[in-house]
């Protein structure tokens, strides 16, 4: 991405140097000779405005000229005619400098070649600062000024931009850095975000991702998660508006997870990993800030759940006996993807005794039966997060994921007489109108199985869902475009 806005330099020879560069100090006599030869020479010094002495250097310590001229190496020597750069040399190559200047003895006594140093414009963190300062106004987002004595963190709370925790101030420099994480045009509409149905540009995604604390390399995952959330199948409007506890759960598959350092192991569903914590948070901040979805407004949750701050983890694919969730859902092996699930919190389960898949499947079925209510069926999805120690039982017995699911389907069919409203002295239950002698707990495709967690602990975990399918939310998988 180049933000240089055109060159405005004098005709003749223009040199960019810095005193702290050994090559620049080495070529200083050559610059003086060029000057003495009567050539029109302008020297810009990036650090010491007196260097090189005798060359009447111009002070470019604010790096404006260097930035505009796109200088990446010092020394850089240019020849300009009619405002156009005719030729540009970087570092010191005596032959080239003598040819460009036409001064035959320019480099007498100097070595024939020395590499240059990095220009100060490419120092870490400087490029974004200069791009914002001199690159012109590329952002479309409204600018909000914070008073000098005002606490910027308090100012962001007051404006209602946060989820209740402090956010990183989205300065133009930070947002510019965030946008380095994608090749997409900042003004491209990434999604139309409910509930206000606002067109959300890649730039706005970057603003909120910066606030959430994301690193630039997380941005493609945030974009994919947002895209998935804003489909009519996933129905983020409904997930937000419901009185149920649900919120978006982001499950990440493929090489991107390892590349950005996501946690799929110990405490994968908990705190402590920056990517896990901030990707899910960025999505929720976008729904809040861009979409306008806030608790007490369109968000009518009775309880909510802590995962509505952020709920994002990666599947442990390396340690899994099974194919990854994204592959099961139709994407090629090795493709990075997110799967969005409308999850309502975590219900861990323990089974430290089962050593056969049949016994462990029975434990799973008993615990899955109670998702939402033991007597409610077909309208609640769930994610079963199988830990490595439980997965070992299935691996050793040669059970595929399909085999496990078949077993669970069978075990999760309860006699209709036990499930109907009023049965067991409980008014709640499935409607009597459901056909068949048995009622399956989950609809077809309503139980997702993934592998994640620490290597110690004969536990698994259930993420209960929300109203499933077309009446509520369908899990949605999207490729992460990097």
């Amino acid at each position, binding site marked *: 991405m180049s933000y240089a806005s055109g060159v405005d330099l004098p005709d003749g020879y223009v040199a960019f140097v810095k005193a702290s560069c050994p090559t620049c100090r080495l070529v200083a006599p050559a610059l003086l000779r060029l000057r003495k030869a009567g050539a029109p020479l302008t020297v810009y010094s990036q650090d010491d405005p007196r260097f090189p002495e005798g060359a009447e250097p111009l002070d470019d310590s604010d790096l404006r000229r260097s930035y505009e001229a796109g200088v990446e190496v010092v020394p850089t020597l240019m020849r300009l005619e009619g405002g156009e750069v005719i030729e540009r040399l970087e570092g010191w190559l005596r032959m080239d400098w003598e040819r460009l200047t036409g001064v035959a003895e320019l480099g007498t006594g100097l070595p024939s070649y020395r590499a240059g140093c990095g220009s100060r414009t490419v120092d870490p963190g400087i490029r974004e600062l200069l791009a914002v300062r001199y690159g012109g106004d590329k*952002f479309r*987002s*409204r*600018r*909000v*000024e*914070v*008073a*000098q*004595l*005002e606490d*910027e963190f308090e100012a*962001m709370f*007051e*404006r209602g*931009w946060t989820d209740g925790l402090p956010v990183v*101030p*989205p*300065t*133009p420099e930070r*947002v510019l850095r965030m946008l380095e994480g994608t090749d997409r045009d900042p003004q491209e509409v990434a999604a139309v*975000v409910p509930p*206000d149905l*606002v067109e*959300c540009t890649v*730039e*706005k995604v970057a*603003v*909120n991702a910066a*606030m959430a604390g994301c690193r630039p390399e997380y941005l493609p995952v945030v974009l994919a998660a947002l895209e998935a959330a804003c489909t009519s199948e996933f129905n983020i409007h409904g997930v937000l508006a419901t009185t149920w506890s649900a919120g978006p759960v982001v499950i990440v598959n493929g090489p991107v997870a390892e590349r950005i350092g996501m946690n799929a192991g110990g405490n994968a569903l908990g705190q402590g990993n920056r990517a896990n914590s901030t990707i899910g948070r960025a999505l929720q*901040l976008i729904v809040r*800030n*861009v*979409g*306008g979805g806030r608790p007490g407004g369109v968000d009518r949750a009775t309880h909510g759940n802590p995962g509505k701050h952020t709920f994002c983890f990666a599947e442990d694919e390396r340690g899994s006996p099974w194919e990854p969730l994204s592959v099961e859902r139709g994407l090629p092996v090795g493709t990075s993807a997110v799967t969005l699930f409308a999850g309502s919190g975590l219900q861990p389960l323990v089974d430290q005794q089962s050593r056969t898949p049949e016994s462990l499947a029975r434990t799973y079925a008993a615990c899955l039966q109670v998702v939402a209510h033991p007597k409610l069926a077909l309208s609640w999805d769930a994610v079963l997060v199988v830990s490595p120690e439980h997965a070992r039982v299935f691996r050793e017995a040669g059970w595929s994921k399909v085999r496990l699911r078949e077993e669970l389907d069978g075990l999760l069919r309860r006699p209709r007489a036990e499930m109907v409203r009023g049965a067991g002295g409980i008014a709640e239950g499935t409607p009597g109108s459901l056909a068949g002698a048995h009622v399956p707990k989950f609809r077809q495709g309503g139980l997702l199985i993934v592998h994640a967690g620490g290597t110690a602990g004969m536990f698994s975990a259930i993420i209960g869902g929300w109203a499933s399918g077309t009446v509520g939310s369908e899990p949605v998988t999207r490729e992460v475009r990097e």
Partner: protein
Amino acid sequence: MSRMELLDPTGERHPVARPRVVRPASLEGLTVGLLDISKPRGDVFLDHLDEVLSGRGVEVLRFRKPTYTKLAPADLRYEIRVKCDAVVEALAD
């Protein structure tokens, strides 16, 4: 330390301004800011108001915008906010 500029993270359907505080039922014990926007004779009006309010024992603080053609600088707005309970701005000339 220079002023910080942030990019608005919202859908920008609403003005940036934050909601007004509730109008006080009485001025007793409150500090009232008088904001002169630098339009001619605004000071005449505010001087009179200052006299009236001070006469009633209200604490009065005076502020002045550098120019009426531009929004009040963020620092001035912040100063008024932290020092005053209410503010009167003299708009017309």
